[in-house]
């Protein structure tokens, strides 16, 4: 019982990383932009956040630094793809490759660094419940804020005028342009917001989730987050669900190891990546699921002068 509650709690934590990044990418993609640079943004944000916490001791500042780093890189990416009309895939790839190199370069002096203890958080009353309290109600505040973020995002996208404009820019930039909306500025804002959330996820990994800095520590989570947006067929609630599912698969691997299953650790570590492939296959095989919800102009450039 206790171990299952703990597994559930750790699943929520692991899923939160993926959920934050994937929600950010969802905002991008709703505006019609695919950013393959998620992995690079998350890595740069991870080292930015880590270094900030080392020097200031403030976890809040660390998360903010991560968001700033992610947003900054996203704006660079956005400027290239939105104003210079570079290929979105190639530019995102460049961002990822650059981020992997740059984060390793910037983090070289932080490999041995230590972080102060994370301030403890606990829900009043609920946190004192036996068994469930420590497992479910003493997690990092971001875990709960992420659930709130999903609700906010759903409200924004489907219940507000701004959300409608954002979606129209992703569906038909020509019409949005004809109606007088500044398509490129809206897209850049969406990309920046997505970058900030990817940055938040990256900083969360290096400061809270596994509070240390190792080269390449994001370990493909940026790519899994990209897969999650497809998995969720671009719906915020399903993104959260998918993220927890993947968090569960990641945690299952540790759980199996701890329970003494005789399978090599490397083979168990493959599980999240294999699960991503399996899920992609299952979702993609049904073209209507994908096509109905996919923003119609996803990945296509828009040039108002033409």
């Amino acid at each position, binding site marked *: 019982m206790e171990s299952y509650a703990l597994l559930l709690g750790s699943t929520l934590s692991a899923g939160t990383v993926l959920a934050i990044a994937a929600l950010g990418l969802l905002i991008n993609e709703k505006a019609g932009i695919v950013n393959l640079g998620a992995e690079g943004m998350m890595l740069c944000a991870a080292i930015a956040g880590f270094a900030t916490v080392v020097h200031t001791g403030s976890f809040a500042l660390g998360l903010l630094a991560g968001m700033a780093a992610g947003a900054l890189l996203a704006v660079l990416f956005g400027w290239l793809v939105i104003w210079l009309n570079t290929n979105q*895939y190639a530019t995102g790839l460049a961002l990822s490759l650059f981020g992997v190199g740059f984060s390793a370069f910037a983090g070289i002096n932080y490999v041995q660094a230590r972080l102060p203890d994370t301030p403890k958080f606990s829900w009043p009353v609920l946190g004192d419940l036996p068994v469930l309290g420590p497992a479910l109600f003493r997690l990092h505040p971001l875990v709960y804020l992420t659930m709130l973020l999903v609700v906010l995002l759903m409200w924004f996208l489907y219940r507000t005028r701004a959300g409608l404009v954002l979606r129209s820019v992703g569906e038909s930039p020509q019409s949005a342009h004809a109606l007088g909306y500044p398509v490129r500025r809206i897209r850049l804002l969406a990309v920046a917001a997505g970058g900030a959330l990817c940055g938040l996820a990256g900083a969360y990994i290096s400061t809270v989730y596994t509070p240390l800095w190792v080269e390449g520590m994001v370990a493909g989570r940026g790519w899994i987050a990209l897969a999650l947006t497809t998995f969720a067929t671009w719906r915020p609630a399903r993104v959260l669900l998918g993220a927890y599912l993947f968090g569960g698969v990641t945690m299952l691997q540790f759980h199996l190891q701890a329970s003494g299953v005789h399978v090599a650790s490397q083979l168990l570590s493959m599980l999240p990546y294999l699960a991503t492939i399996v899920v992609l296959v299952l979702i993609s095989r049904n073209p209507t699921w994908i096509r109905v919800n996919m923003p119609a102009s996803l990945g296509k450039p828009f040039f108002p002068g033409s």
Partner: protein
Amino acid sequence: MLKLEMRPQASRLWAYGSPVLALAITVLIGVALFAALGKDPVRALQVFFWEPIKSPYALGELALKATPLLLIALGLAVCFRSNVWNIGAEGQFVIGAVAAGGIALLADKGTGPWIVPAILAAGMVGGMVWAGITALLRDRFNANEILVSLMLVYVAILFLGYLVYGPWKDPMGYNFPQTRMFERVTQMPRLFAGSRVTIGAALALVGVLLLWVFLFRTRAGFALQVGGLAPSAARYAGFSSRRALWTALLISGATAGLAGALEVAGPIGQLTPYVPAGYGFAAIIVAFVGRLHPVGMVFSALLMSMFYIGGELAQSRLGLPKSLTGVFQGLLLFTLLACDTLIAYRVRWVGAKGGAR
């Protein structure tokens, strides 16, 4: 304010000029970075651009590192030209290395030189199988090839780790995660005395020729490119996009696997967790900087090899981390993509009032 204006025709001048301009900008940013780090920029430029070419031995090392980059990029160029976004070449490289390593481990004192072609063939088959998974899932289930091929990179690296920590670990290896050193006979023959360049470099140049012929002189190569540029036109002409998908992925799997085989049965000589060195990702940049053209990629592979060697030298001579290589590689691709804008657009300066939206 700067304003972009669509050119009536793509600029041929900038098609060639853009990589040069991109390199110049990358070097400028590099100089600024070195200065900011308190290093002598002239010395740093020397480390990156002069040391790797100053002696015959250095040139050999340059060619040695350029070989896997060029081989992988050749295959990737086929993919990108047909609009297949294979970015999992690193995984295909690793599985090629594993398959080649498996054959190399079979050799003993009495093994004949036939083992060398067997190793190369195993590497190619390994890479093709790995790329084939991506092709199959894309073809049958429409699964996104970017994500599938990338996930398979992590799986491949973990699989290599499983082998060298587990069943293939050298029992006499002081518990290091590595296989035993391969027998001498498995070593790729070298081209010149006094240099580590192997027949791999010659194979890569043959690959350049083959790719040129395939792309520009065969119907299959033409069909593949049309499919990439204009899928509906290709369908009218009866060119199969499925066949293009399989062709592109199998060719790039084969070249990446071959590169993996050449590395483990060449400079490395055993399987270790350090076989994946990022060549599969760097080759993406090689392919783009080389304009997806066989000859262009020879130059860009040499340039990227310079960055690798420069990064290593920067570590020993300047006390800078080796990861500088990755920074410059990424920067180069960024600036190239930005400069490529000049091919299709003219930049015009307009007054602030005529500002573009």
